């Protein structure tokens, strides 16, 4: 597994995420009026890996997320998402030049996320996300939440398919498939007993996990989690790690996450990207990043000259 290689060998000549990326961000910038929220950030996220984006408050992490998931249109830059396998740079350039939002490649397909509206990022490119401030359908039950997420797979034959209107057996089979998938995820997040309760009634930690399960019900290739451990107690946080690792293990889903909780980041991620003031300041394995003087300086808030001494202290 690529991830293992990364942890075994701290500095391989080519990184796993570079040889088989799922997401490639090139020179991404986002400006709001005069404010530069993200400034020329490039990074890749590896297929089948957990990639963490970290950085102090206001570093532009959520803005990067919103660009990837189509909620913001980046001012400049390119966001390539690869289905099947990485595309060559010639292929990426060809699709970019074509003016279309996606194109077929030798390995599968390439989507240019910055050209897709948000719902198509989810439905075509299959990028799912969760939100920093949980956004569940609070007045709908847990089960309903998971069924709404399967909207795409249930509406392939149209929003108002006659089979659905007439409740034909073919429709009932599909509906049952959807319920089964929902139950699979309910089981996985340990909320089987609360399927019929409104989502808004769940405790905070359960809501976080339900939101992840809901995102997974869309069968994404890339799952973007915006601070999944925020507000969780240590026990819930450990359960979350377990869930994320099992998603990576058992599903063909790569994970990109924003997180402040370093224990989560260090424990589950294969690759860490560090942002500060909208720019990337470090990029590497958790160990590399942990020891990077600029990262230490950024997190401890010291001047750059002092960073070396801080690093020495940390090492000691």
């Amino acid at each position: 597994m690529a991830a293992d290689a990364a942890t075994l060998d701290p500095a391989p000549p080519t990184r796993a995420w570079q040889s088989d990326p799922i997401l490639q961000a090139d020179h991404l910038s986002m400006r709001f009026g005069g404010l530069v929220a993200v400034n020329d950030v490039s990074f890749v996220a590896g297929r089948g890996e957990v990639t963490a984006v970290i950085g102090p408050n206001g570093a532009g992490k959520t803005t990067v997320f919103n660009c990837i998931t189509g909620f913001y249109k980046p001012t400049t830059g390119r966001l390539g998402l690869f289905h099947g396998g990485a595309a060559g740079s010639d292929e990426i350039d060809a699709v970019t030049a074509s003016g279309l939002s996606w194109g077929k490649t030798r390995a599968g397909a390439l989507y240019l996320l910055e050209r897709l509206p948000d719902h198509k990022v989810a439905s075509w490119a299959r990028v799912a996300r969760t939100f920093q401030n949980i956004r569940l359908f609070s007045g709908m039950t847990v089960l309903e939440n998971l069924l709404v997420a399967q909207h795409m797979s249930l509406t392939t034959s149209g929003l108002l398919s006659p089979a659905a209107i007439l409740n034909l057996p073919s429709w009932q089979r599909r509906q049952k498939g959807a319920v089964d998938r929902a139950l699979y995820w309910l089981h996985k997040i340990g909320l089987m007993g609360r399927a019929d309760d409104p989502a808004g009634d769940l405790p905070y930690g359960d809501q976080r996990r339900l939101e992840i399960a809901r995102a997974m019900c869309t069968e994404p290739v890339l799952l973007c989690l915006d601070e999944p451990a925020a507000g969780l107690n240590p026990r819930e946080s450990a359960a979350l790690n377990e869930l994320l690792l099992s998603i990576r293990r058992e599903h063909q889903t790569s994970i990109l996450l924003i997180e402040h909780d370093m224990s989560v980041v260090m424990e589950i991620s294969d690759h860490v990207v560090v942002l500060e003031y909208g720019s990337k300041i470090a990029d590497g394995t958790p160990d590399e990043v942990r020891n990077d003087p600029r990262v230490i300086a950024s997190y401890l808030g010291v001047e750059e000259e002092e960073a070396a001494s801080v690093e020495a202290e940390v090492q000691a």
Partner: protein
Amino acid sequence: MALPSVDVPAPSAPPPVPAAPARGARGSAVVAALNDAVVSGLITALVLLPLVGFRATESGSGPLTLTYRFGLVAVFAAIVAILRFVLTLTVWRRDRKPRARTEGPTAAARLGTLAAPAVKPVFFGFAIAYPFLSILMAGGLSSSRYWVDLGIYVLTYVMLGWGLNIVVGLAGLLDLGYVAFYAVGAYTFALLSTSVPLNDFFAGHLGENFWTAWSFWICLPLSGLLAAFWGVILGFPVLRLRGDYLAIVTLAFGEIIRLVLINWVSLTNGGAGISSIPPISFFGIPFDSSDTGFAALFGLEFNSMHRMIFLYFVILGLAALTALATIRLRKMPVGRAWEALREDEIACRSLGINTTLTKLTAFATGALFGGFAGAFFAVRIRFVSPESFTFMESAVILAIVVLGGMGSQMGVAAAAVLLIGGMELLRNLSFLKADFLFGPDFDPSLYRMLIFGFAMVAVMVWRPRGLVSSRMPTIFLKERKAVSGALVKEGHG
């Protein structure tokens, strides 16, 4: 001459009295209540003084003169003061145990849950039996006319409420111009059924009376589809707007359509409207006294009430269609997407739901049923004019949906019965004309809309979430549990 007090300080507003200590403060509580009563009485008097105390009276063609009614102002002020005094000391007392609100089911709520499965069959059964009950109660076919007509009238609003409920209650889109689709449906049928070329065309091919007999049944689906089409046309540009803005734009569209109906005289005959719309037929068989008429064919004695009762069942069928379609749609992905949209639009987009398309389907579906209802309206009254499609009409339909409790079909039906039925009953308060009450000059129908407006405010203040605030899930694993209204969102667009 008498006037109802209108600007009475709200019953629900907690009185601005300092909380009375629990014991031994009876006297000070009374003083405080008295104080409060005097203040509210004075405010009432001041508010009513200019427009109730004085009246600008037209005297022939001469200039206006003033007449005075200070006594009336005093009476209202006194009523308000006394009411408030009594209420402060009884219902609003601070040391009374507060009523449980959303937390925990009250006895009434538990009873409601128990009775819930029976409500729909009972309502539907009553709706079917209603015309026969009216005949029984009124003691004859002909004398039941008023009651059957009232039933038709109320059911039309039940249907309109259910139609708008799809847009407002399920999808959370605030539509203040729903009457536009009602108008489109009505005018579609009115224009097509009175169209001479169409009549000639069918007369040449399918018989002289074909179009007169069949026009409603052919135009009904067309009216709905055209209204839905207009829903899409109007919806497309406006659906990215949110909340109140959407409400205002839909209001504007409703008014534009009405103004166009008034001013496009060559097509719509302007404010004079379109008359002599052919009556409804029993699927091609006319309700007349001829040998081929409904009565003769079924061996009945001719009575114009046959048509009326048939109209009743047609609107009942249309309303049932609306209800069944809504129930079915809610269990389909599109219906779930509507409700999800109401709960959280951004989350919907993150799950790949095309929110514009989803909103359009809700708008169009609502418009479809509005169009059906419009065609029915036209065939019932056999006359359409822009007067019937004012903003007031939209407001009434929206009020039915909100008062009923958004999303709840039974709530909406109950609200329609209460509001429309109640408003109709107000027309007939002839006992108020008795000498000992208001005298024969009193015209109760004048007060109809006044009381209607007052009731709208009062019900909102009393139950902001409507009669039925909880939501029933569309699917369940073990147990179907109602979702408390406090958790259900109301939508932002």
